[in-house]
C-alpha cells in the first residue's frame, strides 16, 4: 500500500496523522495556527476555565484584522466593542505567550495576506485559523482550512485537531486564461459551474496549465474562494513559481536549509495515476470577466450576459431562490450586467488585496477619475503591501483618481468595522461573498476582479474592462 499513488492532499494528510481514531477520524497534527480577534476570545476563555495551557505557543501567531478601523489608526479604536475585542486579544496573547503582530506595526494586515507575506505559509504544512478563508494558504501546497472557535481552543491546547479525512476533488484547468482575464474570473467561473455546495465534503486540488501559469497572488485568489464552493481547503502543488516567491521572506528557511526544504517540497505533488473522488475539467481559454448578480457566489455570469430570468429556470426551487435574490438585489430579469450603476467600489479583502491586485487596479484607472457620486476605497491587505504600493507610486494614482487610500484590514468585505454599505447601496467589490447584508445591512454586492472593480469606479457602472479606457 505504501507504494500506491497518492494525491498531494493524501501525502500531507498521511504525514500529519498522530493517531487513528474511531470511525475514520484521525488526530491530525497542526503545524501553524493563525489567530484573529473575532474568533479567539471564547477559546482563551475555555482554556482559562479548564486551567489548560497552550501546548506550543510558537506554533500560533496572532493579528487583529476583522474588526480594526482602516483610517485614523493612530487614534484609539472608537467603537467600544471593537476596541475590547482587540484589547482582549492583546491580553490573551500576552498571558499565554503567543507571538503577536501589533495593530500599529507595518506587518499588520489580513491574516491570510500576512502569513504568505512573512513566509509563515510553507508547502506541506497543515495550517488552520478561525476563519473560513484559511483555504488561501493552500496556494503553496499546504493543507489549510478554517475552523470554529472550539477547534481553535483544541489547537491551542494540543496543537492537533480531530478530523475526518475529506474526499478529494481535482479541478483541472486546461489551457491558459486569455489576456486580461484574472484568477478571480477563473474561480468565479469554477464556482458558477460546480455551485456553492458543489465541493462540500471535499478538498479541491487545482491543477493544469491554467493554474501553473498563475502567479502566487492568482493562486491565492483561487484557493481563497474554495470555501465558496463548499470545500474547506483548496490546494496547488508547489513549483518553481512557489519557490521563487518564498525565497528570501523573513520566516522562510535560508541558505542550505532552503535547498533542503525545496528538495523535499518537490515531492509534494500528486503521483501519476493517483485517484480522485471527482474530477472537473475547466477550459480556461473560454473564460470572460465574471460578475455576480445574486446573493451567493454561484449566482454569477459573464460581463456579456444579462440578469437571468427565474421563469426560464427548469428547477422550481432554484427559480424561487433566484426571485428572492433579484428582489434583494433590485434587479429585473434580462437587464445587462454591463451598464448597471454602482454607488460604492471596494478593492480589498483576503481575496484581492495583494500588490498584484493593486497594480492591476491602478493600471486600469490610469489617469481616470472616480465617477461622480461613487465612493471608492482601496484597502491594502497588509501594512507591508501598502508601503510597497506607495514605493511604486500606486497610492498617488488611487488618490488622484478620488479613491480613499486606507490602512490594512478586512474592512468592507464583512463590514465589522465602520467600512459598511448603507441599505440599498450597490457595490462593485473584489471580496469573496455577496450574501445578503454581508457588506452592511441591506447592501448589494457584485463580486468581480480588481481590474473590473476599478473600471466600474471610473465608469460609474459595471463595465467590461476589456472595452474600457
Amino acid at each position, binding site marked *: 500500500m505504501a507504494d500506491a499513488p497518492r494525491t498531494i492532499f493524501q501525502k500531507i494528510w498521511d504525514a500529519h496523522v498522530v493517531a487513528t481514531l474511531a470511525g475514520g477520524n484521525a488526530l491530525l497534527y497542526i503545524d501553524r495556527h493563525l489567530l484573529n480577534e473575532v474568533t479567539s476570545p471564547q477559546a482563551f476563555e475555555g482554556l482559562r476555565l479548564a486551567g489548560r495551557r497552550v501546548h506550543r505557543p510558537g506554533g500560533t501567531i496572532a493579528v487583529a484584522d476583522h474588526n480594526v478601523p482602516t483610517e485614523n489608526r493612530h487614534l484609539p479604536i472608537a467603537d467600544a466593542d471593537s476596541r475590547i475585542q482587540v484589547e482582549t486579544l492583546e491580553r490573551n496573547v500576552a498571558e499565554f505567550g503567543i507571538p503577536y503582530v501589533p495593530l500599529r506595526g507595518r506587518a499588520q494586515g489580513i491574516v491570510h495576506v500576512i502569513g504568505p507575506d512573512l513566509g509563515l505559509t510553507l508547502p506541506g504544512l497543515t495550517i488552520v485559523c*478561525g476563519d473560513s478563508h484559511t483555504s488561501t494558504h493552500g496556494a503553496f501546497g499546504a493543507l489549510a482550512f478554517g475552523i*470554529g472557535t472550539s477547534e481553535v481552543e483544541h489547537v491551542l491546547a494540543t496543537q492537533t485537531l480531530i478530523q475526518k479525512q475529506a474526499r478529494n476533488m481535482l479541478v483541472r484547468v486546461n489551457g491558459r486564461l486569455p489576456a486580461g482575464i484574472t484568477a478571480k474570473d477563473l474561480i468565479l467561473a469554477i464556482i458558477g459551474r460546480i455551485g456553492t455546495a458543489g465541493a462540500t465534503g471535499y478538498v479541491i486540488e487545482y491543477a493544469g496549465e491554467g493554474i501553473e501559469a498563475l502567479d502566487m497572488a492568482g493562486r491565492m485568489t483561487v484557493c481563497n474562494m474554495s470555501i465558496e464552493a463548499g470545500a474547506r481547503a483548496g490546494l496547488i502543488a508547489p513549483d518553481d513559481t512557489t519557490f521563487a516567491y518564498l525565497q528570501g521572506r523573513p520566516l522562510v528557511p535560508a541558505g542550505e*536549509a532552503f535547498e533542503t526544504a525545496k528538495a523535499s517540497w518537490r515531492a509534494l505533488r500528486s503521483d501519476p495515476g493517483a485517484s480522485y473522488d471527482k474530477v472537473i475539467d475547466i477550459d480556461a481559454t473560454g473564460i470572460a470577466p465574471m460578475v455576480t448578480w445574486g446573493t451567493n457566489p454561484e449566482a454569477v455570469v459573464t460581463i456579456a450576459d444579462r440578469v437571468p430570468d427565474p421563469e426560464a429556470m427548469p428547477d422550481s426551487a432554484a427559480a424561487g431562490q433566484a426571485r428572492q435574490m433579484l428582489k434583494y438585489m433590485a434587479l429585473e430579469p434580462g437587464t445587462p450586467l454591463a451598464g448597471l450603476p454602482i454607488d460604492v467600489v471596494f478593492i480589498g479583502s483576503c481575496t484581492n488585496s495583494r500588490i498584484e491586485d493593486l497594480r492591476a487596479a491602478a493600471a486600469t484607472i490610469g489617469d481616470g477619475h472616480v465617477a461622480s457620486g461613487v465612493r471608492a476605497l482601496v484597502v491594502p491587505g497588509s501594512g507591508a503591501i501598502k508601503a510597497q504600493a506607495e514605493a511604486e507610486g500606486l497610492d498617488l494614482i488611487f488618490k488622484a483618481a478620488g479613491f480613499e487610500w486606507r490602512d490594512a484590514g478586512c474592512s468592507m468585505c464583512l463590514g465589522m468595522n465602520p467600512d459598511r454599505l448603507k441599505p440599498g447601496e450597490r457595490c462593485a467589490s473584489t471580496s469573496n461573498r455577496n450574501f445578503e447584508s454581508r457588506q452592511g445591512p441591506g447592501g448589494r454586492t457584485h463580486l468581480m476582479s480588481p481590474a473590473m472593480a476599478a473600471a466600474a469606479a471610473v465608469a460609474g457602472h459595471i463595465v467590461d474592462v476589456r472595452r474600457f479606457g
Partner: protein
Amino acid sequence: MKPIREVEGRAIPLGLKNVDTDVIIPAQYLKTITRKGLGRGAFETIRAQPGNVFDDPEYKGANILIAGDNFGCGSSREHAAWALGDLGIDAVIAPSFSDIFSGNAFKNGILTVVLPQEAVDRLLEVAKTHPIGIDLENQTVTTPFQDRFRFEIDPFRKHCLLNGLDEVGMTLAQDAAISTFEGRMAADRPWL
C-alpha cells in the same frame, strides 16, 4: 457538554436553502468576547420580515429547526452555533450542511440531522402542527403520524454526543503520542 440522547419538540419549518452564517448571525454581533446572548441577533434579516417563522407564536419554544440544502454555508464563525443554542435550538434537520458549521454545531451539542429532501419536505409539513422526535441512539426521526426516517451520523460524533465528551480532554490524554510525533517531525523537517 451535557449528553444528548433524544430531542423532542416543535420544529421551526424554515425550509430555506443556502442559509449562510451571515444570515444566522450577522457580523455586527460577532464583536463579543463571550458565547452568550447571541440569540438576540440570530436570523435578524429574516425576523425583520412580518409573519416570519421565528416570531410565529405557533413555534414559540420550538427546539428544532428544519432548513434546506447547504445550511450554515459561508464563514467559520462558531457564533452561528452559539446563536442557535441561545435561541433554544437543540437540533437542525436539513438535506445537507456546510462542513464547518456541522462541526461547530457538534462541538456545542447541537445535533445536525441529514435527511433526503423528500423526508425534509414531509417534516416541514408535519412541523406546522405537530412535534417531531429525534432519537440519536437509534438514529431516527419520527412524527406522531408514524413517519420514521433513519439518518446517518459519524459514529465518533455520536459517541461523543451520547456521552457528553470533552474533545480537548480526550486529546490531552494522547499527550505522549503528540510529543513523539513532534520529535519525529523535527527530525524529518529540520528547516522548520
